[in-house]
């Protein structure tokens, strides 16, 4: 059946901010969908609150709404756009949930809008465990034994039946939020309570544990003619009990016979039909008992997902793109496989390589949080790798995660020692029973120290096939250690073998006690260089001209170097806190600009979630780890005219020194300029020369030096290791004692880094400036003012464009400093500067001659595509020819960026913000006034502001200021009643504001915690003192999180929200697309 003729206009729903469980994969799927639908001639409107996405670039959809993804706002969009259909399957759980809400509120019916891609009944059947259970019974398929409960009492009845361990799964939560595994009654009661609370419908599934079983996933597609294909099978290396998002996974399945695989395939197709997904992709998860092959259905998602992005990249079959076509009526046989460009998309990809995905966790960002993996996802990103064998792809994937590892162990000298004490061995074996972010390296140790595969299997549940693969790697390394081999003793065939099983040059260097360069040199002399194979969907059965490549140590190279002008853009690797989708946005915009300038664009990246790793984005894609070795292999082959290191965040920047030394043609700001900005001493001298003030600072190597520097510049001080991004391990110290403690820990964690000490500017306002420079001329793209005071990491604080409290003179000075610095650093391309104003004086805090996290936000709120301009400049254009003007303060609109935090996944983490960045994503609110914009950003970040009710206030002594009193008064004037802790209530009374007193948590009951749990508190303002929040403040934070009560930990945020609430009380919300905001000035691109 060809394209549907009854629909003309389609609304696509995005997934909102990046959170754990919902990341770039929905930017990838949504961008593909929008592009396909536009090509098919539909009018496409899009709603997504996330400004860092490529999909919200105004060229992707016809009408782009950066608005909250709620039924209230989407109704407004529907009123304006009057779409015929909504596509809810590209925006993760967020989009499905809001689509269901639109249906239940009768909005779909009211405006006569149909859902495409999935139906209300299919979503219900797949999402509602009871309906799903019934559906599986209809299919003659098994599910784990279990029942739904709404209360502890009901739970206690069920647990008698199924016994321990038991799994607790709250209904309708994201990424398994609020779930867990209970091993005893106490744990069970506790988890059940949390689960019931986490579920929006207060319901929890208690079920039989299938811990330790093997886990599989199939990606299925179905069209209106009932054609079904399986795109990919995925096997988890980690057994059941570890969330799939936290598991190392492999495609295709490795240990299933054809009969077992076909049984699963039949089941997946049956489920598609029974659930009623008629057009599009879904995934189905299965557990298999390794002892008897019993298959159990875990779940199915009637939409594209993280694993469908993975499957698309792993096979070259673009699931989202094809799902979008199916949604508008095409059938699989009518769509051409755009990799082969000859055969139809109605087939099942075959692959002749192995794909491994390894998650990336950032536990170190969350002190007090235990590094233990369970059924609730905790990873913040993932890396994927190709290899011709599992061993090769696995080792490549490990080094892709950029956690300082270069393979499966043997990447540092500790691996050269083969001795372990009895006690350590017992410890190691115990650790194998618990899955953590480093379990895989524990397995490596266990193998190194001779624990048998059978025993490791019993302890950890890893399948023996995988363990044997691991052992081959360990044996190969041990061989070198045992023989005390030098590099020269390894002959060509032996070295080739090591490379074939994925050893990096660094690992070989460690094992032969030499360095990476020596290994590379020796290896190349022996002619052992990788070849590039093609991802072609068909295992070479048909010709494919699509240049989607991966490296491997085989014999035939398939990549073709052209004579075109070409530029290599280094991507940003796996998502992590501090480096996420913003950098993928910049890379992709850079690609668009280079393509427009008729360059062949070559992407190197290893993050399967991203738009940058869509083979459609660049001329050529190399799916490779972003290590020096792997990047250089591509550069050696491609011989590009330029290499871009400034778009992908810290990942490529870290390589810039080595690449520069190697002679790679880095374009844009020179390595010299990058280093000048990073090297604190040189940079300090430069600032002095330019007469630009910065907070007093010093660099130290030990605690004594730190104390003397701090005494000189005065407390409080901001301390951090140098060359570390995202405020990692950054802290504010108010006293010598804490400074000493910090320095000792920092030296331990980062032994080779200097420690930077800056005077911390208390009560200062921070500003971010994003600019582009061509070496002669500098253009200011945007200036933002942070809402939270200095001390909160810039990536965590909210910021406002244009600045809301600044004089024209201050603005001019910051512009002047920016231009002066850009010229002094010889910046060619992007530049980000952070300023602070304290008592009227302007300081420079940091200069980064590279893409910043705020570039996409600036682009969406000013319509100046800074990344594209930067790329054009890097390719030789001049600003005067491009024709952009400086940002000015006179904007007619206000855009607010707000951060989103993963605290719900880390219940023990402190919710108080500090200099260490912990947010995973961001949202944007844009409107005509500050108040209107902030109400939107608050809703989008999940902190919907109440319009009436009770505000609880607890102020630290430092914060008992007139300003605080005025803020409290503001809330009473809007009709809120106040409750406060006794000290704060007394203070407020002094200022003529009455607040009911409430006991602190430890003062007795009923306390503020009781009031919050009983729903009597609608907003919390709780400012912690000094370095650490006190215990009861911690509890208040946890409780606010649990009951979803908006919480402000800074006065600035509490103040900012006042005007939002006021605005909401008096005005109906309005929606406006970016295309309407920027009617006149849309820059055509790509």
């Amino acid at each position, binding site marked *: 059946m060809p394209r549907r003729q009854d629909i003309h206009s389609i609304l696509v729903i995005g997934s909102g901010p990046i959170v754990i469980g919902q990341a770039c994969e929905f930017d990838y799927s949504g961008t593909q969908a929008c592009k396909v639908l536009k090509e098919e001639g539909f009018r496409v409107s899009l709603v997504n609150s996330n400004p860092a996405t490529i999909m919200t670039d105004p060229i992707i959809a016809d009408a782009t709404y950066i608005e909250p993804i709620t039924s209230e706002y989407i109704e407004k969009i529907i009123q304006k756009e009057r779409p015929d259909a909504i596509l809810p399957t590209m925006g993760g759980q967020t989009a499905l949930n809001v689509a269901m809400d639109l249906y239940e509120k009768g909005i779909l019916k009211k405006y006569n809008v149909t859902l495409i891609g999935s139906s209300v009944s299919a979503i219900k059947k797949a999402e509602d465990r009871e309906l799903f259970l019934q559906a599986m019974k209809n299919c003659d398929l098994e599910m784990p034994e279990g029942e739904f409960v709404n209360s502890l009492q009901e739970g206690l009845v069920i647990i008698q039946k199924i016994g321990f361990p038991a799994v607790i799964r709250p209904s309708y939560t994201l990424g398994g939020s609020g779930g867990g595994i209970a091993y005893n009654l106490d744990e069970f009661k506790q988890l059940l309570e949390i689960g019931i609370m986490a579920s929006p419908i207060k319901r929890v599934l208690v079920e039989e544990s299938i811990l330790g079983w093997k886990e599989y996933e199939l990606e299925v597609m179905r069209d209106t003619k009932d054609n079904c294909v399986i795109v990919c099978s995925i096997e988890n290396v980690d057994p059941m009990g570890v969330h799939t998002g936290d598991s190392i996974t492999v495609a295709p399945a490795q240990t299933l*016979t*054809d009969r077992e695989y076909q049984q699963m395939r039949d089941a997946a197709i049956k489920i598609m039909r029974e659930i009623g997904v008629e057009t599009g992709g879904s995934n189905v998860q299965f557990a298999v008992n390794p002892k008897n092959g019993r298959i159990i259905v875990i779940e199915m998602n009637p939409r594209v997902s993280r694993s469908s992005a993975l499957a698309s990249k792993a096979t070259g079959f673009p699931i989202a793109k094809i799902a979008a076509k199916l949604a508008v009526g095409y059938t699989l046989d009518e769509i051409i496989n755009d990799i082969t460009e000859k055969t139809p998309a109605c087939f099942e990809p*075959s692959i002749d390589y*192995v794909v491994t995905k390894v998650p990336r966790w950032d536990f170190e960002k969350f002190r007090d949080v235990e590094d233990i993996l369970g059924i609730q996802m905790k990873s913040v990103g993932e890396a994927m790798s190709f290899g011709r*064998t599992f061993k090769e792809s696995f080792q490549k994937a490990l080094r892709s995660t950029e956690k300082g590892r270069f393979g499966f162990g043997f990447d540092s000298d500790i691996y050269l020692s083969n001795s372990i004490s009895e006690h350590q061995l017992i410890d190691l074996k115990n650790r194998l029973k618990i899955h953590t972010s480093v379990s895989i390296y524990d397995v490596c140790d266990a193998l190194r120290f001779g624990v048998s595969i059978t025993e490791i299997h019993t302890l950890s549940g890893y399948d023996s*096939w995988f363990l044997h693969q691991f052992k081959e790697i360990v044996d190969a390394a041990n061989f070198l250690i045992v023989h005390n081999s030098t590099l020269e003793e390894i002959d060509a065939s032996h070295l080739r073998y090591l490379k074939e099983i994925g050893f990096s040059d660094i690992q070989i260097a460690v094992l032969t006690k030499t360095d990476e360069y020596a290994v590379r040199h020796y290896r190349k002399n022996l002619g052992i260089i990788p070849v590039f194979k093609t991802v072609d969907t068909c295992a070479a059965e048909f*010709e494919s001209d699509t240049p989607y490549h991966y490296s491997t140590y085989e014999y035939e190279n398939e990549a073709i170097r052209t004579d075109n002008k070409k530029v290599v853009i280094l991507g940003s690797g796996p998502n992590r806190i501090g480096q996420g989708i913003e950098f993928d946005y910049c890379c992709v915009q850079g690609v668009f600009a280079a393509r427009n300038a008729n360059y062949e664009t070559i992407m190197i990246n290893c993050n399967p979630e991203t738009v940058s790793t869509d083979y459609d984005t660049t001329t050529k894609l190399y799916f490779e780890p972003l290590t020096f070795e792997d990047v250089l292999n591509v550069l050696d082959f491609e011989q590009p005219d330029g290499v871009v290191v400034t778009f992908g965040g810290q990942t490529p920047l870290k390589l810039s020194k080595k690449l520069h030394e190697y002679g790679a043609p880095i374009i844009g700001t020179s390595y010299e300029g990058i280093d000048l900005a990073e090297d604190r001493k040189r940079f300090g001298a430069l600032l002095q020369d330019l007469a630009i003030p910065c907070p007093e600072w010093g660099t130290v190597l030990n605690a004594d030096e730190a104390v003397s520097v701090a005494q000189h510049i005065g407390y409080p001080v901001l301390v951090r290791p140098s060359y570390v991004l995202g405020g990692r391990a950054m802290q504010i110290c108010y006293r010598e004692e804490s400074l000493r403690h910090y320095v000792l820990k920092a030296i331990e964690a980062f032994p080779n880094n200097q420690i930077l000490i800056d005077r911390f500017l208390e009560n200062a306002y921070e500003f971010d400036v994003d600019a582009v420079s061509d070496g002669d001329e500098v253009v200011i793209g945007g200036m933002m003012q942070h809402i939270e005071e200095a001390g909160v990491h810039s990536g965590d604080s909210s910021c406002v464009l244009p600045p809301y409290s600044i004089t024209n003179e201050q603005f001019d000075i910051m512009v002047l400093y920016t231009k002066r610095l850009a010229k002094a650093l010889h910046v060619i391309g992007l530049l980000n500067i952070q300023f602070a104003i304290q008592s009227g004086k302007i300081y420079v805090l940091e200069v980064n001659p590279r893409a910043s996290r705020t570039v996409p936000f600036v682009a969406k709120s000013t319509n100046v595509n800074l990344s594209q301009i930067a790329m054009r400049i890097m390719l030789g254009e001049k600003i005067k020819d491009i024709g952009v003007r400086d940002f000015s303060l006179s904007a007619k609109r206000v855009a607010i960026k707000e951060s989103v935090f993963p605290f719900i996944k880390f219940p023990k983490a402190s919710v108080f913000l500090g200099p260490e960045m912990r947010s995973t994503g961001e949202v944007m609110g844009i409107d005509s006034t500050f108040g209107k914009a902030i109400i939107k950003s608050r809703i989008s970040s999940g902190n919907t502001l109440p319009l009436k009710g009770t505000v609880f206030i607890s102020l630290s002594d430092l914060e008992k200021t007139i300003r605080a009193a005025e803020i409290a008064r503001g809330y009473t004037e809007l009709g809120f009643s106040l409750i406060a802790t006794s000290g704060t209530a007394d203070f407020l009374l002094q200022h003529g504001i009455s607040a009911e007193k409430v006991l602190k948590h430890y003062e007795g009951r009923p306390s503020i915690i009781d009031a919050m749990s009983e729903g009597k508190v609608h907003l919390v303002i709780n400012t912690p003192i000094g370095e650490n929040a006190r215990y009861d403040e911690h509890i208040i934070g946890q409780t606010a999180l649990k009951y979803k009560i908006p919480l402000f930990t800074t006065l600035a945020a509490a103040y900012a929200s006042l005007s939002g609430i006021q605005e909401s009380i008096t005005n109906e919300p309005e929606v406006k697309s970016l295309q309407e905001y920027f009617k006149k000035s849309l820059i055509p691109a790509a």
Partner: protein
Amino acid sequence: MHKKPRAILALENGLTFSGYGFGHLDSEAEGEVVFNTALTGYQEIMSDPSYKGQIMTFTYPHIGNYGINPYDFESDAFQTEGIIVKECSAIYSNWRATESLQNAMERFNIIGIEGIDTRSLVRVLRNEGVMRGIISAKVSDTNQLVERAQHIPSMEGLDLTLGVTCSAPYQYQPVQDDQLIQKPLSTPTKTYKVAAIDYGIKRNILRRLHSYGCQITVFPATASAQEILAINPDGIFLSNGPGDPAAAKHAIATISELVKKGIPTFGICLGHQLLGLAFGAKTYKLTFGHRGANHPVKNLLTNAIEISSQNHGFAIDVSSLPSHLQATHINLNDNTLSGICHKELPVFSVQYHPEAAPGPHDSDYLFKQFTSMMDIYLG
């Protein structure tokens, strides 16, 4: 590091690949080098008699991961002459497995070669067509091996059915403890007496027919029409098998006689080609054939797509179809003919493998179609 014995793969076009031998190293493999893109099912593939005379290249790089079990054999032994893989797993992991692939290969005197760039080999076969080759762990003179490869008889003109067919007629008895058996689309309500001619029949064809109610008498490829008709069958089944269909003159003659009787007849793969030849169509050799478990086939009568299991090097030329035959299925990858039926007689056949093993079960309905035909025939 390497303790593995060296082995060489030599092709008739002069290309040689150096790798490591495994399995039964004293054996050499001579045959037509082909490739299969299925991700699972090496045990079924290696034991499929249709692969007689062929050396199989598995495009999936890891083979042997789940070992070998007693249930997934498609015949009594491995039938491929040899196998070519990127890496043969040193261990196996699966609850049904009872031995390793290497072990089974030693039992069945099959040699394999691993550690070669199988993808580059497949690209050669894809571009130049499948060709004769040899695997040896005994001879290191590549020139000698290439020359030997050039003297292996060409697949064209070879009738290989006689080497794989049964020696005498027998009644099919299902294995009682067989595992993971696919259920039929609908439970049969009666039984059918079916005569199956064995040109190298796969066990799963017998299982599938049986699950739809067929009581099967299996006849050797040499059986005459009279012998077959003597059991008064409700239906006749023409099996898969190896070699060039046009060379199987005896089989074509027998089928020509059988189809005149108006008995429902169903052919698979070689059976399909022989049926076409019996009705006067022509067959030809494809460049590199279709071997895998992901080929889209369109049913021209319903427009539905089946993802099919395929294994053939020859095909019926669609332009040669006589007027009383109708094309019912085509392969969407290259529009080659995938299924035919007779316009008047209850006779149909498919080029691919509805019995799967290995492969998807999408085409299982064809067995049901066969029994439905017999229902009509029986009144």
